[in-house]
């Protein structure tokens, strides 16, 4: 089902979405937002603000109680649960704890995203070195995650998230486990990726990063949209 209200520039539209958990926790409370193609948007809020739940809704790991979510002009709430992989293939995810597979090398971790999506070996062999080059880890392709620093591990996770050229890259506190200097390096990498045309939605509670980057910022508190700042 196509969204009649959206322009084709909008990658994501969230309309009045509610998600609650028993007995009486409303994790996402009537949130609406939209993101246009090529944008870099921050979502800022403390723990329990609803950032992660919102991301889980966007990736169809959870279903909303009410409201609509349009991704690439398609209402993903109408997509059956067993086909949620179709939504996930349009998204890329970066997490605070990197979520790398410890027994796979850097190359294998990154290539894994294409393998899972059933891409050909030829495509995997072509694309994997390209993204590893982009994140500056081509020379460490044979290393295992345990042999890398925190920043490098996050770069591997970013490479894995963008290898299939997603419409929207979602990053949930990607600098949460990193020191200030490494966080800046990672933010620079995100900006580079954004400049290549990838839309990014990033959750953070680090105000300094937000102030420095000066991108559109949506503030959440207790599951509600509190404010929106456009620089």
């Amino acid at each position: 089902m196509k969204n009649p209200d959206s322009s084709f520039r909008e990658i994501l539209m969230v309309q009045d979405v509610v998600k609650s958990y028993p007995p009486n926790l409303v994790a996402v409370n009537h949130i609406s937002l939209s993101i246009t193609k090529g944008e870099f948007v921050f979502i800022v809020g403390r723990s329990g603000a609803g950032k992660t739940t919102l991301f889980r809704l966007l990736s169809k790991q959870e279903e909303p109680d009410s409201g609509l979510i349009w991704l690439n002009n398609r209402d993903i709430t109408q997509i059956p649960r067993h086909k949620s992989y179709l939504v996930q293939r349009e998204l890329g995810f970066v997490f605070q704890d990197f979520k790398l597979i410890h027994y796979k090398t850097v190359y294998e971790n990154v290539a894994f995203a294409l393998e899972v999506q059933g891409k050909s070996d030829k495509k995997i062999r072509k694309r994997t070195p390209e993204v590893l080059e982009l994140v500056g880890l081509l020379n460490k392709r044979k290393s295992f995650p345990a042999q890398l620093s925190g920043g490098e591990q996050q770069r591997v996770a970013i490479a894995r998230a963008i290898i299939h050229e997603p419409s929207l890259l979602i990053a949930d506190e990607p600098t949460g486990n990193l020191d200030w200097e490494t966080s800046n390096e990672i933010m620079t990498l995100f900006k580079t990726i954004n400049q290549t045309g990838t839309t990014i939605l990033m959750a953070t509670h680090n105000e300094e990063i937000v102030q420095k980057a000066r991108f559109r910022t949506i503030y959440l508190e207790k599951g509600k949209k509190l404010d929106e700042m456009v620089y």
Partner: protein
Amino acid sequence: MRWFIDLKREMREAWVAFRRNGINSFGSIIISMVALFSLAIILLLSVYVQYGTKSIGQRLNITAFFDPSTAEQQLNETFSRVKELKTVSKVEFISPEQALEELKSRFPDLNEMELEESPIPPSIRIVPANSKDVSALIRDIREMPGIASVTDVTEAAKSYFSIVNIGTLLGLALIFIFFAGFIFAVSASTSLSIYAYRKEIEIMQFIGATRTYVRAPFLILGSLYGFLGALLASLSLYPVYQQINQFYYSFVSFDPIPIQGLSILIIIMILTIVLGILIGSISAYFAVRRYFK
């Protein structure tokens, strides 16, 4: 070709999970082996019991004695009716003279007695088609005209069947217990494997893996447990088969029905392996369903 690549990957992942889950995998295989081994033995025994039942049936001779005053025409009619019964394998008419001769041959002392005529009334000797039908057959014959009495071999047949029935019940109970254990063990081991892979599963789900992609290796893992257990059970079956076969022939040494033991064994082995794979994957399916609920 895509499906082949997928299958190769799923089998590889299943094998990795199998090795990672070492001790549990070993335990599951042993339990599935015990369950399938007991099933296979019970199947094998039931085949031999069936043959044995037929064989014993052919040795449970029923003798029906006519009333001495029965007219010859009636004797012939009753004889024909008995012969037509489906539960009868063989019928023989025994005249009083023939009966006396047989009696004398069994008890030579009788030869010294001067008997003017045979005291034994005319009779028919009946071989039942199956020992299971003995009771019904005796009942039918008793009601026929001219029949005065029938030798009752029901008790002998009954004691044989009560042993068989108790054996069957015990066997079924054992199968049930072992299979419940089998399903539980494979299901638990698969759950542990899934748990060990929870991080990879979470990653796969975020990077767009289909349900089949995530779940298939665990279903293959379950069927691998079942297959290996069944294979070991089948291989352990041969020496047991030899013992059963030897016992059977020492028990029914002049068995008129030749038993095709080896081909039955092969069929049971194949059946065991198929069942092992099937139940292994069904058990794994339960575990997968529970985890991904």
